């Protein structure tokens, strides 16, 4: 185990020491950008928590409830992330073929891989939580001791979540041979979807928004005071924070003991289970997939219209086949479908009884769908170039230009993205029962957003290619992926800001008889939208192409 960690440390050291100046600048640039984004979120959370805390009587209860919700979401996200990551790290990692043939014990290999999985699957979630924690500490003036205390407690918290995720993937790999990995992933998707639905209905966020929907105030306070999943480490974390703030030392030690005890227990059980199951799971993963049905030659991508031309058709066809067969690529779709379903259900349940609220929500819905599209593009469009991986030589050696390659990647992302966005916005509009103007505006906006976000995804993916990664998650969580997401969110926010001009004109025309819209504002908004989308689509696309052109194979 020490030897393996040392090798990992040496790899990291070599990577850092051999960084070129351009890499150093790139890293520093990304670091600065990440920090700016962190500050923005931190500022947003400070505002939010101040507002919530200032609500008379129940402010502090609301803040605690928010924290418990955040910890619970974080806990479930780490479980999900470690389940998916452990499929790659525990069973399909490239270095396993060397490790498994070495005279190391399976326990040592498993422990090393578990540690790797825990780091992979939790760092991003922890980082995302940091602005919230920092804001929380700031508004209650908790000082450095609070952060130190949270950092210590987050170790068992993360370990329990990761161990549960790994136990799940270990069980699935043992129960099903790898030939049936699709069925396993489908099952996993259904489980995740179900868990998410239960979680959202459990949290019932709309109840917090509309306190008046509950019959009596006491009922609302009881809702706030009720523990959120009291048997899970997320509640122990939240309770430990409360105990820390109230300086209830015994409670604090009790919750810390529970967290460390749970980590020790779950960790030990996982190691015992792994000693029995890991080797079987790994050998099962080495079996190849089932034999394909023979298909007559020439029909592989016959379903793609001929007007795309031979090159693009072949690229689209190849990408579609690879996507369907590569479980790593589509498995997170299941989570996404679950999230979308939960989003739609929540929209349906929103108590929208005033026209103003309905108008506002239907407008914000455009941004929400834009956010979903940006996330989908990060997951499926941004990695498209990098996923060519070591087969990239086959495309670069072939007589087709980089434009054609990028165009093919764009098309294979744009069509599904536009359809998905369109369906999502139409269904949510139907639930919201918005007027035809909003339906047209939102549908057109989403199609344009799909176009621009997809172009930007392909462009950024080409600008920061990573052909040698093992795991798709390493592509989307790379600095380039994070930068793409930040830019995509900025683009969605800007689009929404510009479109507020149209919405305002529309609502004024409804409520103010004889209202004359100012044509110059209308034209300025249209021109801004055009410029924004041209830049969003074109700039990364061109820069990405230039970067790939310079990239040595």
């Amino acid at each position, binding site marked *: 185990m020490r030897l393996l960690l040392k090798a990992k440390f040496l790899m990291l050291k070599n990577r850092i020491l051999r960084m*070129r100046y351009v890499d150093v600048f790139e890293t520093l640039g990304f670091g600065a950008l990440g920090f700016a984004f962190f500050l923005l979120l931190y500022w947003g959370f400070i505002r939010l928590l101040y507002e919530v805390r200032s609500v008379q009587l129940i402010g502090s209860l609301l803040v605690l409830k928010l924290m418990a919700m955040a910890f619970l979401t974080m806990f479930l996200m780490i479980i999900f992330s470690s389940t998916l990551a452990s499929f790659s790290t525990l069973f399909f990692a490239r270095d396993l073929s060397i490790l498994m043939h070495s005279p190391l014990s399976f326990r040592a290999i498993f422990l090393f891989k578990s540690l790797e999985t825990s780091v992979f699957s939790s760092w991003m979630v922890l980082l995302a939580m940091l602005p919230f924690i920092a804001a929380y500490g700031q508004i209650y003036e908790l000082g450095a001791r609070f952060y130190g205390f949270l950092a210590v407690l987050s170790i068992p918290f993360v370990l329990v979540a990761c161990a549960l995720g790994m136990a799940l993937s270990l069980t699935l790999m043992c129960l099903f041979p790898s030939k049936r990995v699709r069925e396993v992933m489908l099952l996993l998707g259904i489980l995740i979807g179900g868990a998410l639905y239960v979680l959202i209905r459990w949290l019932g966020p709309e109840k917090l928004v509309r306190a008046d929907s509950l019959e009596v105030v006491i009922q609302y306070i009881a809702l706030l005071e009720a523990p959120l999943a009291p048997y899970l480490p997320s509640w122990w974390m939240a309770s430990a924070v409360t105990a820390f703030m109230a300086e209830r030392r015994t409670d604090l030690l009790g919750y810390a003991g529970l967290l460390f005890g749970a980590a020790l227990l779950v960790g030990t059980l996982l190691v015992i289970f792994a000693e029995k199951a890991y080797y079987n799971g790994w050998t099962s993963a080495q079996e*190849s997939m089932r034999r*394909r049905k023979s298909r007559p030659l*020439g029909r592989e991508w016959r379903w793609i219209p001929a007007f795309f031309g031979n090159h693009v058709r072949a690229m689209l066809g190849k990408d579609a086949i690879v996507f369907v*067969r590569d479980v790593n690529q589509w498995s997170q779709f299941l989570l996404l479908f679950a999230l979308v379903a939960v989003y739609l259900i929540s929209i349906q349940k929103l108590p929208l009884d005033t026209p103003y609220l309905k108008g506002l929500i239907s407008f914000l819905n455009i941004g929400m769908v834009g956010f979903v599209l940006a996330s989908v593009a990060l997951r499926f469009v941004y990695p498209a170039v990098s996923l060519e991986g070591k087969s990239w*030589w086959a495309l670069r050696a*072939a*007589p087709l230009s980089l434009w054609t390659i990028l165009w093919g990647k764009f098309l294979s992302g744009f069509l599904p993205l536009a359809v998905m966005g369109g369906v999502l916005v139409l269904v949510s509009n139907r639930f919201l029962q918005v007027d035809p103007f909003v339906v047209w505006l939102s549908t057109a906006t989403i199609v344009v957003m799909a176009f621009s976000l997809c172009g930007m995804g392909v462009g950024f993916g080409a600008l920061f290619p990573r052909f040698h990664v093992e795991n798709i998650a390493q592509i989307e969580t790379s600095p380039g992926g994070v930068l793409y997401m930040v830019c995509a969110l900025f683009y969605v926010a800007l689009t929404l800001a510009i479109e507020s001009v149209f919405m305002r004109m529309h609502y004024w025309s409804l409520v103010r008889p004889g209202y004359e819209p100012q044509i110059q504002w209308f034209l300025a908004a249209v021109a801004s939208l055009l410029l924004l989308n041209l830049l969003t689509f074109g700039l990364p696309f061109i820069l990405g192409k230039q970067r790939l052109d310079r990239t040595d194979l």
Partner: protein
Amino acid sequence: MIKTTGLTKCFQDVTAVDGLTLEIPPGEIFGFLGPNGAGKTTTVKLLTGLLRPTRGEAWVGGFHVQRQPREAKKSIGLVPDQPYVYPHLTGKEFLRFIGDLYEVDLPYQKKKIPELLEMFELSKWGDELVESYSHGMRQKLVLAAVLLHRPRVLILDEPMVGLDPKSARLVKDIFQNLSQKGVTIFMCTHVLEIAEKICRRIGIVQDGRLGLIGTAQELAALADSHGNLEDTFLQLTGGSEYREMLKYL
């Protein structure tokens, strides 16, 4: 068919290929030999447009590799040193993909793909995913893909690695046959017997520089070696001193 003038590639402070000047006429099989790290694979990448040269120029099939990349690439069939192929495609699908990228017409593909699979004894594996192929099978699949689009120049980086003796013999015969039909073959290899048997001329590269060039006999004469190409190669690249070291193992 292949021409380079002062072709140079530097990676930061390392010069991988240093002023390579070479001319290979149509129909010649040219062997490109050298120790590990001598710059063979970099040369292959420069000739196929996978790398941009730091200095110098290259023409393949009569086309300038940098200025007319599409035309040059259309005339090249490349077998890289590592035959990485999309693991989630079947053998047949990969060949169809390559066929379409090189604009090979569909009726020809339908006729030729089963023939190529048969020739390389991959027929029963044609509908299997490439991820289940062995290294040798992948190598054969890439060779089949190269032959599918009838290139005028073959650029091969260690084409015999992983092949069983029967397949190696088949590949050797194919190369000789293609050469007789006017196809130029540029082959990097460590299998010196094959280079000696099928290459008309051999170039030996060391530290990025093309040290010697000529027929096997000419090289032997230059090295003052009376043995086979292996002895000549070791004489020229300084490998013979290892014999002393072997005594201590």
